[in-house]
């Protein structure tokens, strides 16, 4: 019987040479480094653009910043113009927006996190809030124009501080609701259970234990929402905020031109007054052809950015305090 070679012979083992095993490592590492460099450069570009913007605004506007600029009304002559009208409008917006949006936003957040069962209604609200957050701000302006300026004219008085503040309140409502929910979720379940075990009702537990624990987180969200609100231009232009305002809302005629007490003393004078805000004043100055007005715009941008940075630092400080306590 002739011995035939088996068809299934074990193949000769092949040993990879070192170079094959390395798989052209030098070149792959080179590509790696290039990629890493690209991510560096991309980050650097974003920061550089931000720096370019800030330096440009500062170099254009710093020269115009003065006490006169902060306390004058707008004028046809750029060197006499100031931002007091716009500052007062922004100030009133910053007061009225939280008065409206804070209770509603926190209440809605409380409902979704603490009081609702997982019903179709709460799911509908949740989807709805996600959708609202994606609606362009100018659409809110159209809503404000149709609802607050036109339909609710007897209450708001038309294109007024109140109509603008209500529009902005609706605009920032999703931000406050989401922040409230996150802050409430961060409160340990143990606190709720302990409160309930002591015989507290759900509302007593929420009021005395959960809300205080979540408060700084909620306030952070409210401040961030406010800083979004005072930077918004488009919705207020749409509802018809003025661009030339040689007066301030309220009944304080002289320096300092705005007084929070006016809200109690003469609420309708404040709420039903025509107004402008900082971003609209900036928009107005930028869209004029004269260079001197552009410098005014840059100076007003500096003021607006300083306000935003201040508000954001308060929010960051609150947040870090909040995180420090929780951990």
């Amino acid at each position: 019987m002739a011995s035939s070679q088996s068809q299934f012979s074990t193949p000769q083992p092949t040993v990879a040479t070192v170079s094959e095993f390395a798989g052209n490592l030098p070149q792959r590492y080179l590509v790696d480094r290039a990629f890493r460099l690209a991510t560096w450069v991309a980050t650097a570009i974003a920061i550089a653009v931000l720096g370019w913007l800030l330096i440009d605004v500062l170099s254009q506007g710093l020269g115009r910043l003065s006490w006169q600029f902060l306390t004058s009304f707008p004028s046809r002559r750029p060197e006499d113009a100031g931002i007091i009208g716009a500052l007062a409008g922004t100030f009133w917006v910053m007061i009225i927006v939280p008065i409206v949006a804070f209770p509603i936003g926190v209440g809605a957040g409380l409902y979704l996190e603490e009081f609702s069962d997982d019903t179709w209604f709460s799911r509908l609200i949740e989807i709805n809030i996600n959708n609202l957050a994606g609606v362009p701000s100018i659409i809110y302006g159209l809503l404000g124009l149709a609802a607050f300026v036109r339909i609710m004219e007897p209450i708001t008085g038309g294109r007024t501080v109140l109509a603008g503040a209500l529009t902005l309140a609706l605009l920032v409502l999703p931000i406050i609701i989401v922040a409230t929910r996150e802050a409430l979720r961060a409160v340990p379940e143990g606190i709720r259970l302990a409160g309930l075990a002591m015989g507290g009702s759900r509302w007593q537990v929420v009021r005395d234990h959960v809300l205080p624990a979540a408060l700084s987180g909620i306030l952070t969200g409210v401040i961030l929402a406010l800083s979004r609100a005072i930077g918004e231009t488009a919705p207020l232009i749409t509802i018809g905020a003025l661009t030339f305002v040689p007066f301030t809302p309220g009944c304080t005629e002289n320096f300092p031109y705005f007084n929070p007490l006016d809200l109690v003393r003469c609420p309708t004078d404040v709420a039903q007054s025509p107004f402008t805000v900082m971003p609209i004043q900036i928009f107005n100055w930028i869209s004029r052809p004269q260079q001197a007005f552009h410098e005014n715009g840059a100076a007003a941008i500096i003021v607006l950015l300083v306000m935003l940075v201040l508000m954001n630092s308060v929010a960051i400080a609150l947040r870090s305090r909040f995180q420090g306590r929780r951990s």
Partner: protein
Amino acid sequence: MPTEFSSPPDKSSLWRPNRSSSRQVESIVRIVCLIFAGISILTTLGIVLSLIFETIDFFSDPFFRQALWINRLPDLLPDASEAQIQAVGEQIQALDPTQLSSASQAVGLEPPSPIAGFFYAITRFFTDRRWTPLFANDTDFGIFVLISATLMTTTIALIVAVPLGLLIAIFLSEYAAPKLRQVLKPVLELLAGVPSVVFGYFALLTVTPFLQQLIPSLQGFNALSAGMVLGVSIIPLVASLSEDAINAVPQDLRQGAFAMGATKREAIQAVVLPAALSGIVASIILAMSRAIGETMIVTLAAGQNPQPINGDLGFINPFIPVMTMTAFIVQVSLGDAPFGSLAYKTIFAVGMALFLITLTLNIVSYWFVRRFREKYD
């Protein structure tokens, strides 16, 4: 002798919490919170209803009925000469559009029905090639003029924001040291917090003059610099959402790739990015939706000139002024259009188009995450 304890005469006097009143308070609070939560639904309803009503009002404006009437004259008067038709047309044009039916005796012809006018308006809205709603005569309502400009600025913005945002996300999640990351994240938040009017200033007065040195034919208002700055403004959105998606990819996958001999970039490119793809795509779609709805940058820097859709291809030229949907709404709002005027209704029709486009994109992005998310549990 042990002390004697006697039980108190009435145990319930020691422990009698006022449950019924606290229950009442609780149900009141619950209802108030429910109403507040319902306000978000009312907001959506308000947006949708005001847009729908004003848009229907726009399409049923008698202006369109009148225009259709003039348009149909050759059919209505088959025997008339062109000069006669033109004369009748001018006669109709002179009529008060709100009094068409009663004024028809003067012409001796029946005007088209309001429903025909409505559908004619819709046809005009989608097929006109010019956007001249504020002209006294020769008025055209081609919404695609505005949509094309919006798409152009958005495309330029995405060309800037997607590569930069994605690379920044990869840098933050894969390469940056934790300390550097702690510094960079607030910087990105700062960039995200810059008001859009400030970006508009930057685009109009800084970037455009700079680009004009490189491209002499660039005009003072143009889609290019508006789109580029728009792109910068949405970088933080792309970066932070993509970073979240990349961070959600479990470490095991990276280590598996390293164990197979992949270098870091190969692991990112072949394993991490595909695993995070649904989140990344969703972030890009959301950024696109944001860019479409962004107003001040394009109003300030891209101009107010609707470019007709014709063979000149001006509507896709990024070097000349164009007009986006949002810029038109601002232009009319600044002009103080009286309630009920055609211009007033037009901004709602444009707003409706804008709302539908962004809503579709938001839903697609939501659906995309749901549909294609890789789950690692």
